[in-house]
């Protein structure tokens, strides 16, 4: 009976981990149904950022940006996602908390998955798209917002971030409510304890 209970607990933990990853929610989703006429540039002099909020303990798992090549971009062009805290001047991007490189592959969604960005406290953050190399990409604007609109947009044309009005771009941030690492660690710990117990009872 005890053996059954430990097995049941282990299964539950693993299922919990799996289901949480499968149901990662969008905490930022700026893409609506149609593209408007604006087309922002993304190059080593022109960065953009969108502001969103997190509750305590959320873990970011996926970052995506809606990117077009235009006439100059090519598959493999690099760009970087930066996660800033909103502690800059007037709540603009401040401390650079995390960054991850990505590459443009084709027009549409481009980004990185299976991240585990944890340790974030409740508050506002900025997700920025920046370029350090020679990439020249374009960011279409959207006439309506998606399921989790940005709190604000900002741009940096070489002299720091400023609030951007009248233009937007497509970006998505997915998160899970608790650290995925917690579930993995928990499941490993349980299985370890379970195996230790079996070992000691057999002695």
């Amino acid at each position, binding site marked *: 009976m005890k053996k059954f209970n430990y097995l049941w607990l282990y299964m539950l933990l693993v299922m919990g981990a799996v289901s949480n990853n499968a149901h990662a929610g969008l905490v930022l989703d700026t893409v609506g149904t149609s593209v408007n006429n604006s087309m922002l540039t993304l190059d080593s002099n022109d960065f*953009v950022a969108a502001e969103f909020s997190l509750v305590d303990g959320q873990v970011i798992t996926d970052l995506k940006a809606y990117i077009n090549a235009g006439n*100059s971009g090519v598959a493999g062009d690099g760009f970087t996602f930066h996660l800033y805290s909103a502690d800059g001047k007037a709540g603009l991007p401040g401390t650079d908390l995390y960054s991850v490189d990505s590459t443009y592959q*084709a027009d549409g969604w481009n980004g990185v998955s299976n991240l585990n960005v944890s340790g974030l406290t409740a508050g506002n953050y900025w997700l920025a798209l920046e370029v350090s190399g020679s990439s020249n990409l374009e960011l279409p604007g959207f006439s309506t917002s998606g399921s989790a609109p940005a709190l604000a947009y900002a741009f940096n044309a070489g002299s720091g971030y400023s609030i951007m009005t009248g233009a937007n771009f497509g970006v998505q941030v997915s998160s899970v409510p608790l650290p995925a690492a917690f579930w993995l660690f928990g499941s490993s710990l349980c299985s370890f304890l379970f195996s230790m117990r079996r070992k000691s009872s057999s002695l």
Partner: protein
Amino acid sequence: MSKYNAKNKKKLSVVMLTFMSAAYLSCFSMSASAADPVIFSFSTIGDTRQDPGAGKADKTALLPPITGTLLPQDAQWLQNTHAWARILRTVQSQKANLLFVNGDMIMGYGRAAVPPTWSTTAPATPSDVVNSDLVNFYTQYAYWRGMVANSFETGTYVLPVAGNHEVQCNSANLTTTPVLSRSVCVTGKTAYAENEDAWRANMGDLISDLTTNQRFQSVVGTNALNVSGLNATTAPNSITDSSISTNQADLSYSFDIQTAAGLLHFVVINTDPVGFDSHAPVGWLAADLFNAKSRGAAKFFVFGHKPAFTYDYLGNGLGTGTAPPQVGIAGLDNDIAGPSGRNIFWQIIAQYNATYFCGHEHTTKIDQHVDPTNTYTSANPWQVLVGSGGSPFDPKFGVASVSSTDRYYAWATVRVHQSGNVTLDAYGFSDSFGPTQVIQTIPNLQ
């Protein structure tokens, strides 16, 4: 066995079909540039100078960063550093091989000569000297050269195009110059030989390097071929254009760039030669384009300062009317039907399906114009007006104009693709210095 083979063949064909469809779809969804890479590119803009004139700047009561405001830092050097520096940074990030600046890089508008009064009355104070037209020209050139110097370090070679502010004297402007520092010029706006000399003295090194190649090839990645116009014999002269009376070396010049997509031909023209203001050297241009085509040039790009077709940004028709206000004719269309007038100029452009890049009007307009003489009707060449590099906008703040981007600081970047297709993107940012945007795309310029 044969049944087995037939079954396998069927399976194989299904797999092949699936693979081919997937390959086709993936190619289809790839961007144009990924399938057709850029092999050469250039950017172009005009009119980066500032203006000290009363009423030229708009929104003067507001603090920067506001367009048109003459910043204290720019008052001496008369350059819109705020806009121009940002444009330069983005052009550098776009990795253009060349940057053509289509005139009016300096305020100029005087006579770059020793004032005649100095022969009898020596200048008494430093101010008498440093405020002379001669010193103003040279210091403004030097400041502009300093601003573009970094472009060469990042792979963009800058080529200048003479504008009316470089080669003309504006009699109205002399009222702001100290008496001792003046050289009188005739009423109106007129080109002077000493201003053409000052051009060569301050810009000539950038142009002569097309042949001396001290730096051009290392910056651009390839050398210039078939360079013309670097001396009085190969530049427009009285033989090619009877109205030309002064040395046009370095003011109108041309060269080729060999690419995998064919030979590209670039031509720069002075649209205000001495004695023939507001005219293109059409005789020289026709011969130059003919020669380029004869040696196999496939794409033709012509750069001048004044537009062939004035952009009516108010939409009230061109003219001098005030109710409603009209845009005055500002370009080569001051002489439409003359023997060297606008129509002949555009006929030549149409004959070679060239693209004409210009400035002068402080706004942006990119549109097509058919040959007004109906001689070459198969082409519909583009005029790319990008006089939006920092000079006070012609469409004034708060006054309705034709396009929402009329008051954008804007430039064009042209890309030659492997296939030979030529694309153009116009980029810009608003008069309140918003984010940089793509404001117009032309998928097939030539």
